[in-house]
């Protein structure tokens, strides 16, 4: 379980929608390999009888009553919008 190949770097970059230059792929491959090697240390442990931590605190059933609260005014909705068309957010075609 050690190291990561260039293809795998490109694969996770694609999954995460990160464009990478060739130089970056090479550089990250080296760094990520070292990191993955280090974090793979967890494979040394046999924890099959240990439950995964669901949550740092043992809490459940946190929810809210179905009561409406005021929505944002449009100028707040779009205050930081990079591009807008009327009252829509505008992006290049999906």
């Amino acid at each position: 379980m050690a190291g990561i190949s260039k293809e795998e770097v490109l694969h996770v970059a694609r999954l995460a929608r990160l464009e990478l230059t060739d130089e970056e792929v090479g550089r990250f491959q080296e760094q990520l390999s070292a990191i993955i090697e280090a974090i793979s240390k967890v494979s040394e442990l046999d924890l099959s009888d240990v439950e995964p931590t669901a949550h740092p605190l043992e809490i459940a059933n946190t929810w809210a009553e179905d009561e409406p609260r005021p929505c944002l005014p449009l100028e707040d909705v779009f205050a930081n919008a990079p591009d807008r068309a009327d009252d829509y957010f505008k992006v290049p075609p999906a």
Partner: protein
Amino acid sequence: MIDTLRLTAEEAWKLVDTKEISGGELFAAYLAAIGERDPELHAYLHVCKDPGGDGIPIAMKDVIGTKGVRTTAGSKILESYVPVFDSTVAARCKKFGLRLLGKTNTDEFAMGSSTENSAYGPSHNPWDPTRVPGGSGGGSAAAVSGGLAPWALGSDTGGSIKQPAALCGHVGLRPTYGTVSRYGVVAFASSLDQVGPVAKNVRDCAFLYSIIAGRDENDSTTVEVPEVELPTAEDLKGLRIGVPKEMNEADGIEPGVTAAVRAAIELAESLGAEVGECSLPRSVEYGVACYYLVAPAEASSNLGRYDGVRYGRRSDGADFREMLMNTRHDGFGDEPKRRIMIGTYALSSGYYDAYYGKAQRVRTMIRNEHAEVFEKFDLIVSPTSPTVAFKLGEKAGNPLAMYLNDLLTIPSCMAGLPGMNIPVGLSEGLPVGLQLIGPQFSENTLFRAGHALERAIGFDVVPERLR
């Protein structure tokens, strides 16, 4: 003449309360100090000109959302982002009458241990500006130790409050997970992030905690907290303090750090504490690996929303996917990119069980080990950071080496436990911090122990070169 280097928040309060000075004068004094020393320290990314009212000033780490005030999370991708809503912690401070001095520097998206990952340049340690102040909350740390704010809010995921506090010589609390709201705080790792107080002394720290802590209906992971007791006792009678072998004798701890911490532990004993050895057999050994699986995994998902659609910087693209990939390439620095990729990898099909799934079990193991120790002890102690402040540039090229700065702060974070740093001495002229860790909801015990030790040690929080 207000000595912002020495003034505590409690003292500032008294001055304003008794009308010896006005809130406006107080604010102006900090602005003047910032004008004088921040060009060197670069603690602030944004300084507020107008306090907006009377009250004690406070600085906030730039991951904490502040309505109407730019919040960048130390990243270019949010370089002109101005929130339209306050985070709960900012709102609680405002409601209490605290006035925002400015937003402090941080490693990008709180990922780092030195602020060298900030897209806006690093901050500098007030004790020695050629050295790092720690991270990710190095800006708040430099501000408090550099006399540029009486106190500040920081955030801690794997040690981002405690470690800078150790390197800069002041008090920082990472609260029990779930006691302080994360609503409106730029998320890094949701099951680890906590906002906490950064202050000159334990009493200030406790007081600021009492202002921000408590259940928030906007954050499903918060709970009610026990009432905060401001510490007064100056002894440690009846307190059982454990010294985990693996934390105190780990590889990489500098001898000067060991010496200062050991002296503090002996002092604790003389103050009446029962000190004994204990063991966390695997928490230290596997803590860093566990953290660097869980945190990046959650971060990879939390950072998905930075897509250039609704806010933040957007790059060009012929179609949505191209725009998205360019935006994230151009807007994120290297460390977020690394962590996003590690996190995506750890969650990906075929790898989940071995990586993220496994890490969540390691987390349970760490929690169980700590719980066992806390059956016999009220607190455990160790150095906060293995080293004193290192030189800028020394570790920046080596991500793994940088991660090891958090070796001692990480394990208790994985267990959701509170931890506080207090400065206990110097090594080579630089501050050494002691970490006190307790079980969940034991903040009052931390405050009591920290305060008594602090009083006994009498550490001067003002950097020598600035006295």
